[in-house]
């Protein structure tokens, strides 16, 4: 398991209803979100399963924003 690292933004696993709402917000099906492998260290850490959505909170000089990744099979 990977140790926490200040260069890795916060990953959060969304519940089914949260994922649904997010998909609705962007008006696209879940599989149109950017993807992440279930074998990705961060996905593994969250014990994410294919079909789930991970929210990533990123920070840059202009502010904070949320990015999403749809978990797919490796």
């Amino acid at each position, binding site marked *: 398991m990977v140790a926490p690292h200040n260069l890795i933004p916060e990953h959060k696993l969304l519940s089914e209803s949260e994922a649904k709402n997010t998909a609705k917000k962007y008006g*696209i099906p879940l599989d*149109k979100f*950017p993807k992440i492998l279930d074998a990705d260290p961060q996905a593994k850490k969250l014990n994410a399963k294919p079909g789930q959505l991970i929210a990533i909170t990123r920070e840059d000089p*202009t*502010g904070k*924003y949320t990015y999403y990744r749809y978990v797919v099979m490796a």
Partner: protein
Amino acid sequence: MHAEAIESIRFTMISPDTIKRMSIAKLIVPDTYNEDGYPIDGGLVDQRLGVIDPGLKCKTCGGRVKTCPGHFGHLELVRPVIHPEYAKTIYLLLQSTCQQCHRLLLTDTQVGDMKSAIKVFVGKEDEAEGATIDLTSLAAANTTRDKEILIKKLKSVKKCPYCQAAQRKLKLERPTSFYIEGSRMKADEIRDWLARVPDNDLKLIGIDPVATRPEWFVLTTLLVPPVNVRPSITLESGERSEDDLTHKLVDIMRINQRLEQDIDAGAPQIIIDDLWELLQYHVTSYFNNETPGVPVARHRSTRPLKTLAQRLKGKEGRLRYYLSGKRVNFSARTVVSADANISINEVGVPTRLAENLTVPVYVTLWNIEEAKKLLQRTEYPVIINVITKEGLRKRVTEVTREELLKGIEPGQVLERQLIDGDIALFNRQPTLHRMSIMAHKVRVLPGKTLRINASATTPYNADFDGDEMNLHVPQSLEAQAEARYLMQPKDQLLSPRHGGPIMFAEEDEIIGAFFLTKDDAYFNKDDATEMLAGVGVYELPKPEKNGVYSGKAIFSMILPEGFNFEGKTLDGAEVSIKDGKLLKGIVDERLVGNGGGTLLLKIFEDIGSDAAVDFLSRLTKMTLIVSVKKGITISVKDYYMPDNVEKERVAIVKDVEAKAGALIEKYKQKKLDPLPGYTRRETLEIIVMAQLEEARHMAQKLLSKSIDLDNRAYLMAKLKARGTILNLVMTSVFLGQQSIRGKRPSRGYNRRVLPYFRRGDPNPSAKGFIKSSFSDGLSPTEFYMHAMGARDSSMTKSLVTAVSGYLQRRLINAMQDFYADKNGAVKDASGALIQTIYGGDGIDPIRERVMKDKAKS
């Protein structure tokens, strides 16, 4: 026209039967014309293959040159030949089928295993049934361990699961030779093998046996394209010159015929094999004369033959040149030149062009009278064509005018010559950003060049050293409206890259603005009148007590009414404009030039694009008048430095020499601490280099101290109008350190750059420090160092532009279908999410400040 959506396109191999069915003639004579110059029947220009000579009739369809589409012929190869472009496919098929029984080297259970593996991947049962078994789709399937075992097994089948025959080693020697266990396989053997692979096994590996039988990859008949595809040219001398394809086909037929004769005569096998190989070579180069591993077939003049693949391939090939290459009407191209008297929103169009370009005038019930008047005209703007309601384009001439005038009715379209005020798109390649195509209003002008305001060159990256630009006249009203409302330079004043102006005052205008607005600038009535009238202002500002007019007051006349502005000049002095009056400060590069254009920006944001463009147009014109009045020139005198500079120069050189010497001494005594990540040697180089570059800064400081703004060259550099202080330093003080790949020159001879230095010479001049200036002249060794630096920078420059240009092209191609949807999320054409919010912050640089202001209020 009837249109239907294409559901699918399928590419398949052409079969010998199809070839024979398509063919109109079997060709047997390997020649073109007989002694009388008449096409030989059964030859390569057989008259049944179509007509290319005017006046003749096609023997197949009876059509003439324009109506006969041409007809295919064929020729039968005495011995089969491998199709060179399919050699790889053949190799794959040979590898995956049994050498004895020609079945696929897979057991039924293995096939079942793979299908179930693919089922997991595809997710649907019926799709998996029809799925083809190839290792790529299998690799994507998700049955981890079983999958790996399976793939390993498939890659090393040594025995046929059906007939138990041992499989021998196969080899493909490019382009078309196959070997089995070291011995050559002939094309007919390969053909027989492929012919025996059962249909059902082919389906499994993704070949539809009805559409494509693998034995068709080995050619027995060759389709001969009609003469229209390979027309012969008659030279002035009356001699005929055949197309490259015809030449190649003659070669093929000649060898084919000899092969046949030799076989019939019972010639020895070696001779037959040699000819066979030659036939294979000719067929290979007929398809592609650039096949790797095959000598290039050449014309008698040693020019390589252009065969089938060469016709399609590359920039000048059929695809890129004719299919993706688009040519348009209603466009023009010539050299561009500058015109300070037209607005940046305009383009000067030469009369010759304006007379030939047209704009449609749609005749309606409401404008029919005007349309009639237009049609009656016999001098410049005239109607060139009338497009009738049936869509016929009829030319207006002396003869037809009366009749067309009588027949004029709503629904017709008149094509009118281009006049002032029409809208036209102006473009310069490379079209790198959206400002590379902008809509200008037409100004018809005498002369032969297209003209633009110098300030409009920046977005196009144009100059007037021979640049050519393209002009397009939008035809539909929608296109015209779109151009007018979105694409005019005034709408593109701010760059989406940084949000600041990309059209601004330049060079002479910056200097002019300085002399116009500096504190002690006063003009007499004549000059003030001239300056103001030149920009269309016919009033004078309030004069000073002694009857002169201050430059600031004159400048204020072109400011919008009630406009307020607070800003800073280049050197940080305050500028204040209140109620449309310049009260304090100098208008310089930072306000109206490339240094941000803060004043322009404020006008754009406070009042609008029209005001900003109007201000810029007037400003540039007025400042040019000032420049001309002032008479700004530079001469050698400006590069002649006062005495103290020479003394200081020597001091600076001595200083850096001493510092460099000290560093080297320190290094030699091993007292120099290395920088993190560098060796001691590298550390020395870095510090010495920095030290020597410091010399230039010292020289710049020296210059600023020693000369004043009366030196025009210095003034220009200071105002950022043209040139830099470094240019001055290099012409008048010294060139300073030359560099190669960011380091001091270090290679050449043994431990020295040139043989004129001692090995390990610690003097900076041994490693490219130049003590002379351009006006002194360089010593031979300095000259050489300078040439090395110049070569390095010119090479880096051209390399960097090529690399970054291509990188940008790739980025544009990858991102061209991205768009921001109504929520600000970025998606691509398929709807896939790219960014949750544009740029991670949702900011459009053009509107950033406006957004902030809104947020404040």
